[in-house]
């Protein structure tokens, strides 16, 4: 027996025929931003500075298989050349916008690279110290580590429908416990293992209030951050400060060079001369990227974050899924917290995470709730953080206060300007009640 009628003509809706009207207003935001920035930098870095100075970039470290010679360029001409490329990008963006064509993410990436290169050429012009490119990149990756773990934690929770604002608190708790346990055992690795436990404890509170008592998840998260700051600061002042040798002098995680790989010029020192926490980060990002989109666990978790009732009607336990993933998220953020103490080789200090948890949240959004996107966004923020450090050491014409502001300014610009239209998991923040 066949179906009674064939579908009437025109009834089969083809999504590709959803027309984008010629009437739709064109958004000129991107080309205007590119154009203004390119012009400003062309004038500031290329036209205005006096000529005759040189900028030196170094690429090699002592352990490389072969050395790359330092690059010495005339500052003015190099800056002009680089900003002209940026201007070309702006023109290309203008043309494609006008033609209503979309271009891939390589365009903003190219723009960013040439603009940063122009900035560096100008900032280091005439200095006796060369700019160590490899060191700048290695430091960026290192500083990005807590941001990567933090945003992975956020996306694990949000993909299953729980908003985790408590990343900051989980990082801080992880940093605290790693320091204490690392000091007590005099073993940085034991401290590293302890850190996730602290993150899970904070996550359990988040679960209790958001799933059991259905309190607004954003408020709970903020309150938990304040709570962790309070508890760790109290313990720091009453116990750790006066007795630092017993409680707060954690050993540092050793830098592990991976044989052969570590000797590749530029890439080796950046990627393969790091400590175990950074290597763990590579593994966690890769595993989550695959598991989230291809495994049964990932499919069920995303279904719970998007349409919990649909998940329930096919027999998936919604709240159990959310609880497990929020705990996992807490563990990941706690592990990231170990960065601040045992990985960086620092003693625990009050509020030492300094808002990195919130920047991690921004990285998660900028990375569109995907692990590889979160990694890329966190690297951007890590780079801007380290740039400020490196330029501070070399000495630049830019006031230090402005330099300190860089990572936060980049965060705001990135989230406000680059994100565009993103879609959060549809049911995040909404408690599931049958």
């Amino acid at each position, binding site marked *: *027996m*066949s*179906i*009674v*009628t064939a*579908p*009437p*003509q*025109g*009834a*089969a*809706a083809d*999504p590709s025929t*959803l*027309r*984008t*009207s010629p*009437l*739709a*207003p064109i958004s000129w935001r991107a080309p205007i931003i590119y154009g203004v920035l390119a012009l400003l930098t062309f004038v500031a870095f290329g036209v205005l500075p006096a000529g005759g100075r040189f900028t030196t970039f170094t690429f090699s470290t002592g352990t490389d298989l072969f050395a790359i010679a330092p690059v010495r360029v005339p500052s003015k001409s190099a800056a002009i050349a680089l900003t002209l490329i940026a201007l070309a990008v702006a023109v290309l963006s203008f043309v494609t916008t006008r033609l209503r064509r979309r271009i891939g993410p390589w365009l903003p990436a190219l723009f960013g690279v040439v603009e940063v290169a122009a900035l560096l050429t100008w900032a280091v012009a005439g200095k006796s110290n060369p700019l160590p490119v490899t060191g700048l990149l290695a430091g960026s990756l290192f500083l990005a580590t807590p941001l990567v773990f933090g945003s992975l934690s956020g996306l694990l929770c949000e993909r299953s429908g729980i908003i985790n604002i408590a990343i900051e608190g989980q990082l801080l708790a992880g940093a605290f416990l790693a320091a204490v346990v690392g000091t007590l055992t005099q073993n940085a690795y034991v401290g590293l293992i302890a850190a996730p436990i602290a993150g899970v404890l904070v996550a359990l509170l988040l679960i209790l209030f958001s799933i059991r008592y259905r309190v607004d998840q954003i408020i709970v998260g903020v309150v938990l951050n304040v709570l962790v700051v309070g508890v760790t600061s109290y313990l720091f002042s009453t116990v750790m400060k006066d007795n630092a040798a017993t409680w707060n002098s954690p050993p540092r995680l050793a830098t592990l060079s991976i044989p052969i790989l570590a000797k590749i010029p530029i890439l080796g020192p950046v990627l393969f001369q790091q400590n175990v926490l950074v290597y763990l980060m590579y593994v966690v990002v890769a595993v989550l990227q*695959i598991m989230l989109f*291809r*495994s*049964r*666990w990932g*499919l*069920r978790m*995303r*279904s719970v974050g*998007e*349409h919990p*009732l*649909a*998940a*329930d*009607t*096919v*027999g*998936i336990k919604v709240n159990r899924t959310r609880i497990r993933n929020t705990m996992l998220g807490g563990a990941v953020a706690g592990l990231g917290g170990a960065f601040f103490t045992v990985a960086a080789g620092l003693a625990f200090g009050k509020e030492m995470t300094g808002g990195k948890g919130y920047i991690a949240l921004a990285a998660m959004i900028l990375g569109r709730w995907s692990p590889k996107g979160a990694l890329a966004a966190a690297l951007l923020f890590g780079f801007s953080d380290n740039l400020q450090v490196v330029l501070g050491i070399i000495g630049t014409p830019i006031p230090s206060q402005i330099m300190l502001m860089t990572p936060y300014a980049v965060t705001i610009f990135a989230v406000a300007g680059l994100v565009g*239209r993103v*879609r959060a998991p*549809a049911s995040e923040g909404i408690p599931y009640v*049958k």
Partner: protein
Amino acid sequence: MKLELRGITKRFGSLVANDHIDLVVEPGEIHALLGENGAGKSTLMNVLYGLYDPDEGQVLIDDAPVTFAGPGDAMAAGIGMVHQHFMLVPVFTVAENVVLGHEPVRGARMIDLPRARRLVREISDRFGFDVDPDALIENLPVGAQQRVEIIKALSRDANVLILDEPTAVLTPQETDELIGIMRQLKAAGTSIVFITHKLREVRAVADVITVIRRGKVVGSAPPSAPETELASLMVGRSVDLGVTKKPAEPGEPALRVAGLSVIDHAGVLQLDDVTFEVARGEILAVAGVQGNGQTELAGAILGLQKPVAGSVLLDGTELVGAGVRDTLRAGVGYIPEDRSDDGIIASFSVAENLILDVHDRPPFARGISLDPATVEASATQRVDEYDVRLTSVQDPISTLSGGNQQKVVLAREMSRPLRLLIASQPTRGLDVGSIEFVHRRIIAERDVGTPVLLISTELDEVLAVADRILVLYRGRIVGIVPQKTDRDVLGLMLAGVPLEEAQVQAAEHHTALGAADIIATQEERS
């Protein structure tokens, strides 16, 4: 598989949603569960599907009692359900949705997507569905989404399939296809429980009809029972199925919409160069399947959405660019399609809801404060006039039934001199009595000379109330036709087929419901 419900009772607080319901579904039968909105049909099926625990009673499968802790147990027992609101994740593909919860896996619990695709294709081919396993759900039309839901249930070897109001979102032709699918499933031995309040469909497809009213089974009937008998059983009194109205006496055109285009925030053209007129004393119905630009049309006229092109002239005054408040004060009454979100403020009292649009003007406002006595007095008067059943006008409006809430909306929007009435889905989710009331009020408004724009996805409502019918498809006008147009022709137009072609196609092939119509007409005559 034989399915039996015995003495099922489900209470929500003091409300008894199901009161000792007995129901037997024999193997391979299409069993219609007929009842008004709010009669307790969906509650019963949610009990059967393990979403609710019954307070009393038993479910038996092949005469053996079973208990379901959750939908997983019900599915394992061979019960599948297609919910009224589809249980599909919009950002997942068809294959992902079908296998969700019983995923084929390989290796480290990675989803075996090729197998999932094969599963979808196999069932899809068996029943002649045309479904691409890799399409995203959000890009599919509702008819196709429903087929995905059926595939989902069948992929779990459902022997009993519950269809909860499956035709609510379909065009007549899609409904016809669904009826074909139901017959196919029946032939393959699947039992079907078909929940609906539409008499016509029940008669076209059911083997047995059980009627539910206020949570109780009030009787059963064979499908040959006349519509009026089924209707009175369902409502509890004899009802007049038709709407009585005088022929329209249209005056000069009052609302002139010209070249109106709306683009949504995602950049998609939702309303494309729409031009029409509504005369004084006439009801122009805008027919279309949900999501074909109706919301944007109402929004653009009212000023909720800014059109990218076009003009809206009401008695010669341009409304485009005027704010919502100015538009309302120019004499536009608006009954919004989503009553609970846009029509009322649930936690406000009935009296407060009645003055939402005029709270800042005398006599209700005195300086910066409200005059509670005037507000209450006016509310009491309107509540009487519109026959709203309540205990006090100071009660929150959320304590009222849907029908009474809608009467409050009508009272607010229609108890002032109007120059245009826009009624968007005015009877959605209402019981038969309230539907009659709303229709009478709208026709009365027309009879005093107000132009009326009725937006409805219910073809029955459009045919009953309209004087002329405008069909929208993907934001464009397919045609404007007289009220006497054939149902099958309109059904094809709802799917975007132009009038002439629709007439040819409809003449060649009548749908099951269209045929049922013809038979019903012949019965009436004889």
